[in-house]
């Protein structure tokens, strides 16, 4: 079974600074997808960024980028120029690329990192 570990329950960063959130995962599969989701206080889960395991290039979305280390099974999220609106719970998630019915359906989540932005 796949597991996702976020070892930082809470992080804080000064506004306009850069912060990196850690995520490691465990899997025996070679084909899978990784996601970072953001859950602000309004509680709607919003996709921040996604990475396909077969792609070597790290995904980037504006101020958000990942450092995907497939061999190390590490998938960290870097937020540059932090803004007050970035304050939220951030979840790392894994989904199998297997075409078996159930494996492809389930998102396995980490326990989350609560990010606080200091004005």
């Amino acid at each position, binding site marked *: 079974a796949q597991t996702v570990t976020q070892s930082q329950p809470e992080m804080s960063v000064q506004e306009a600074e850069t912060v990196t959130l850690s995520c490691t995962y465990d899997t025996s599969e070679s084909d899978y997808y990784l996601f970072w989701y953001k859950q602000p206080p309004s509680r709607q889960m919003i996709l921040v960024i996604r990475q396909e395991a077969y792609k070597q290039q790290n995904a980037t979305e504006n101020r958000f980028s990942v450092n995907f280390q497939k061999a190390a099974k590490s998938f960290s999220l870097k937020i540059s120029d932090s803004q007050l609106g970035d304050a939220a719970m951030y979840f790392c998630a894994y989904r199998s690329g297997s075409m078996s019915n159930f494996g492809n359906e389930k*998102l396995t989540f980490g326990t989350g990192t609560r990010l606080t932005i200091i004005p």
Partner: protein
Amino acid sequence: EADIYQTPRYLVIGTGKKITLECSQTMGHDKMYWYQQDPGMELHLIHYSYGVNSTEKGDLSSESTVSRIRTEHFPLTLESARPSHTSQYLCASRVPLPGNTIYFGEGSWLTVV
């Protein structure tokens, strides 16, 4: 943000009552999901559906049931609510292509007293 809607957003209900949490999406997605999230904890899949008349249980056992009579609608029902059902329930959907993003609704926060 995706067009997936959940009602009610917040509900406080007495033990033994029957409740239905509504979830609708206007994107035509075949695949829909229900996740359960306790405060400050990760999400766990409790139900999913491949399409109309298709429902499956997830990897977290749940006393709730679901139905999928229409593509856009995926309600979750608790026949007899108990305090242990107090949690947030998140509905989600995606297109049936490998790796496609799952979009979440705003969630329904259920408190059973």
